[in-house]
């Protein structure tokens, strides 16, 4: 009957066990029901509907019932083996916890939407230079205007120029970072005022009667005490003049590419072509994509390029989502850490599978009994899976708690170069990740353990001691150990390479001495100083005042090293004025190079005589001298802006822009001879801790001019620390991961060899009875371990070579195939592994043949 066929198919919804017990009867009952309904003249559709509803309700319950029974059984088993359970749970908690912690960082930094409305539609627009470099740059007014005019897929577009101002408030001065924003900026970000208003069209008129400002929430709290009367108040921004506060931004508002913008001013058009470039952002129209906008703006750019005087040099455009732009710097690093953390998870899986296998092996008799009583292989596998799941879920809960506990530490350790650290939290997504990971780990471990056990079960009989499946199982376990050793080796090599990298980075010749030097920024803009002479005299007075402080050994105007940005100038030889050469340039005053600790190779440093009245003078570094004046630089003259400048000295190469960047050809120009370029920074070298002298330095500066505020104050040691922070973070985490991996691998090897010895006690007894020496037995056991470790190391090496390209992005000053790192990693793993075999080997050597044989 077709009906009963359908019914039998539907019965498949029930667990097999239930179906086996009651399927036939249910089918017969259903048949009777239909017969009765037919006799009673009822329609069979009603019977079918009721049956269907019943099945859909009952079948899941039967599954849950079985699951609950299996889980209860697993829990009872675990309670009987607390040692095994505790070590499995600990292993799982560490593995899942570490991964959840790293995931929470990856999620919080890379994936979480920016805390702005419509954040998924926000894009960052940049200019790109001509190929092949296609260097990304901020945007010129001309490009911005053309995009704003032509882009159809943008709902809104806005720009912000970085500026700074000094807030003169209550007798003091505070240096503020600020932004000059375009008309569309706030609209693009859907910003709203907490108080007052944001900018309107009138504010952008170049003949506006008053300049207005919108202040950030922090500044409002800090400088204006959170008073609502601040709206309408005029505040003094020093050189930028008086502005009227018209609004206060909401506390949640933050522009993620310029977080410390405290005050916003309208970007009033000046018509000048020499304005500083700006950051541009846009909001995509609903449904529009980054790629679509890119295509559209490419067309706009190519049309502009065709009309330009020099089409080859016209800028292109690059569109990225705002979130990608914010997080781009940290992406590879975080993925790398996530990858290494998952290696630990792999080892955890192998270890727990091994533990469960030992556990199932110990229950062989029970499994055989159950199989004999009719438990199918599927049933045994299901039981094994449930055991794995129960362990993994409990371990996962512990891991999640562990993550909640370690994430704050991770954030504290993380370098400031990673954005959005404040937005990391252990919330639902992390819980979901921990759950999914636990389920995957539980399935993997349970399946690995039970499939091997299940396969061996039919081959076993109650009477046999050594069964066919044993061999297969120990093969599988040895395979797990080999995999563990291989993964642990990969991590150990990574850690070794990062240690070497850190050594290479810290051993880099800086070319200067960063100890006891402090960099102090100042802001002379408010003093209304005009002209070369006035600037030179302020700088001279300032430095003289600071030099008079007890403990200061050198001081001079100039920028701090590791600045990332640099100034570039063109110079020419008097003999070939039409062939300019580009060099890095630094505007420095007397005492600067001494305070930095640069070494004078020839000639002299700047002195007071290199002032406005003196002959234009410069120093060069060795690279510049070698490149441009190989015959000797001192006394040579070059042209800069058609003006002759004479070289008075040569200093060694100094790592100025970045720690890991090769020093470039650099020229030092006298700050006192340049009215237009203000470094606004000085370096002070002291005999002791420079931070202790800071109050005295402040007092000295106040005596020169009380209105001069300090901006950034930082020791060179701090700057160096920050420059190495990302690498240190990698090193810390990967070392931690590799130590955990090594520990787990050692525990795994120990467990497997120990079990194998326990199984072979009778065999060892026979061997010893036949004359094998204790040393021979020890060698036999160690030999077995050596094989596993050896194969693991070989596979690990292959993986290391395969991952060469990935690792190359994270090392510096060392080859990814560095024989020392590789050798040490292999040696450490081999030694730790053999040590783990040594204890079982000793036990094997102590086997008493009489006792062993009697037991047999």
């Amino acid at each position, binding site marked *: 009957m077709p009906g009963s066929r359908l019914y039998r198919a539907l019965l498949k919804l029930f667990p097999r066990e239930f179906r086996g017990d009651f399927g036939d009867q249910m089918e017969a*009952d259903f048949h009777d029901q239909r017969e009765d309904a037919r006799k009673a003249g009822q329609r069979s559709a009603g019977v079918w509907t009721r049956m269907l509803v*019943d099945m859909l309700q009952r079948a899941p319950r039967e599954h849950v019932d079985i699951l609950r029974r299996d889980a209860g059984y697993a829990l009872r088993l675990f309670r009987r083996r607390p040692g095994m359970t505790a070590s499995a749970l600990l292993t799982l908690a560490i593995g899942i916890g570490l991964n959840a912690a790293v995931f929470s960082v990856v999620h919080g930094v890379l994936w979480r939407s920016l805390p702005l409305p419509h954040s998924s539609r926000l894009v960052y627009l940049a200019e790109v230079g001509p190929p092949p470099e296609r260097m990304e740059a901020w945007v010129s007014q001309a490009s911005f205007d053309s995009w704003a005019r032509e882009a159809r897929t943008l709902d809104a577009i806005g720009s912000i120029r970085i500026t700074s101002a000094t807030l003169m408030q209550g007798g003091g001065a505070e240096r503020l970072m600020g932004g000059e924003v375009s008309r569309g900026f706030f609209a693009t970000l859907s910003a709203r005022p907490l108080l007052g208003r944001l900018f309107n069209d009138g504010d952008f008129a170049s003949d506006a009667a008053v300049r207005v400002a919108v202040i950030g929430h922090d500044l409002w709290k800090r400088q204006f005490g959170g008073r609502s009367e601040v709206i309408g108040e005029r505040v003094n921004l020093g050189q930028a003049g008086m502005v009227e506060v018209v609004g206060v931004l909401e506390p949640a508002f933050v522009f993620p590419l310029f977080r410390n913008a405290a005050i916003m001013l309208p970007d009033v058009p000046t018509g000048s072509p020499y304005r500083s470039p700006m950051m541009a952002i846009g909001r995509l129209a609903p449904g529009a994509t980054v790629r679509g906008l890119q295509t559209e703006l490419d067309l706009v750019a190519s049309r502009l390029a065709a009309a330009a005087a020099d089409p080859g040099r016209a800028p292109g455009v690059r569109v990225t989502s705002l979130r990608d732009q914010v997080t781009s710097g940290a992406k590879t690093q975080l993925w790398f850490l996530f990858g290494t953390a998952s290696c630990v998870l792999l080892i955890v899986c192998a270890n727990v599978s091994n533990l469960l296998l030992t556990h199932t092996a110990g229950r062989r008799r029970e499994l055989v009994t159950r199989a004999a009583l009719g438990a199918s292989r599927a049933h045994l596998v299901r039981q094994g899976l449930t055991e794995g799941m129960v362990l993994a879920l409990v371990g996962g809960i512990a891991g999640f708690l562990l993550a909640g506990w370690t994430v704050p530490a991770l954030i504290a350790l993380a370098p400031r170069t990673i954005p959005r650290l404040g937005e990391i939290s252990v919330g639902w997504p992390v819980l979901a990740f921990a759950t999914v990971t636990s389920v995957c780990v539980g399935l993997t471990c349970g399946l690995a353990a039970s499939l091997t056990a299940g396969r061996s079960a039919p081959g076993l009989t109650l009477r046999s001691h050594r069964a066919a499946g044993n061999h297969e199982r120990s093969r599988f376990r040895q395979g797990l150990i080999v995999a563990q050793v291989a993964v642990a080796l990969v991590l150990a090599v990574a850690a070794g390479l990062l240690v070497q990298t850190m050594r290479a980075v810290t051993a880099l010749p800086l070319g200067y001495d960063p100890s006891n030097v402090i960099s102090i920024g100042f802001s002379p803009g408010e003093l209304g100083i005009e002209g070369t002479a006035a600037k030179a005299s302020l700088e001279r007075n300032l430095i003289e005042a600071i030099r008079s402080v007890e403990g200061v050994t050198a001081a001079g105007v100039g920028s701090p090293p590791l600045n990332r940005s640099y100034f570039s100038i063109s110079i020419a030889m008097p003999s070939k004025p039409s062939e300019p050469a580009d060099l890095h340039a630094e505007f420095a005053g007397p005492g600067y190079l001494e305070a930095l600790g640069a070494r004078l190779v020839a000639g002299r440093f700047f002195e007071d005589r290199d002032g406005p009245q003196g002959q234009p003078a410069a120093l060069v570094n060795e690279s510049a001298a070698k490149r441009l004046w190989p015959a000797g630089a001192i006394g040579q003259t070059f042209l800069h802006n058609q003006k002759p400048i004479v070289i008075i000295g040569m200093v060694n190469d100094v790592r100025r822009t970045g720690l890991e960047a090769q020093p470039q050809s650099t020229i030092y120009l006298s700050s006192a001879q340049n009215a237009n370029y203000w470094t606004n920074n000085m370096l002070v070298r002291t005999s002791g801790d420079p931070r202790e002298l800071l109050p005295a330095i402040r007092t000295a500066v106040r005596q020169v001019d009380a209105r001069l505020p300090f901006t950034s104050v930082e020791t060179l040691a701090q700057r160096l620390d920050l420059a190495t922070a990302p690498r240190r973070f990698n090193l810390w985490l990967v070392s931690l991961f590799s130590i955990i991996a090594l520990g787990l691998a050692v525990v795994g090897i120990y467990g497997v060899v120990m079990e194998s010895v326990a199984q072979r006690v009778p065999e060892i007894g026979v061997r010893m009875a036949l004359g094998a020496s204790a040393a021979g037995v020890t060698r036999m056991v160690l030999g077995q371990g050596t094989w596993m470790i050896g194969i693991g190391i070989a596979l690990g090496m292959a993986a290391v070579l395969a991952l060469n390209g990935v690792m190359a992005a994270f090392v510096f000053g060392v080859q990814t195939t560095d024989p020392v790192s590789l050798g040490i990693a292999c040696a450490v793993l081999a030694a730790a592994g053999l040590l783990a075999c040594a204890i079982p080997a000793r036990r094997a050597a102590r086997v008493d043949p009489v006792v062993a044989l009697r037991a047999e």
Partner: protein
Amino acid sequence: MASSDTTRDPAGYLPLTPALFHVLLSLADEQKHGYAIMQAVAERTGGQVELSTGTLYGIIKRLLADGLIRESALGSTDRRRAYRLTAFGRKVALAEVERMRDLVTAADMTKLLRVSAEV
């Protein structure tokens, strides 16, 4: 699975769900197979409790596991198995009846039943 009846306390199985109780009741007088149980329950309750096959065999599974009923050799055919109440199952059913009787007695002592009778 079921340990000896004398050591188990029927009270540990109480209260019974109505469906489960009715299944026990339907087996009180004679052994029945599944469909007969369904019919008997429907008849006894005037169609109020209608067991579907899935629910019924879920209950039978539990009753078998707990030793309240057992399969009967008598009356079984190839496809059909009949079930009968065990002595322990009878005790449990009786204990449930006692429990409900106690409830009714307790309610009798209050105004509850009198008031509802008046209403």
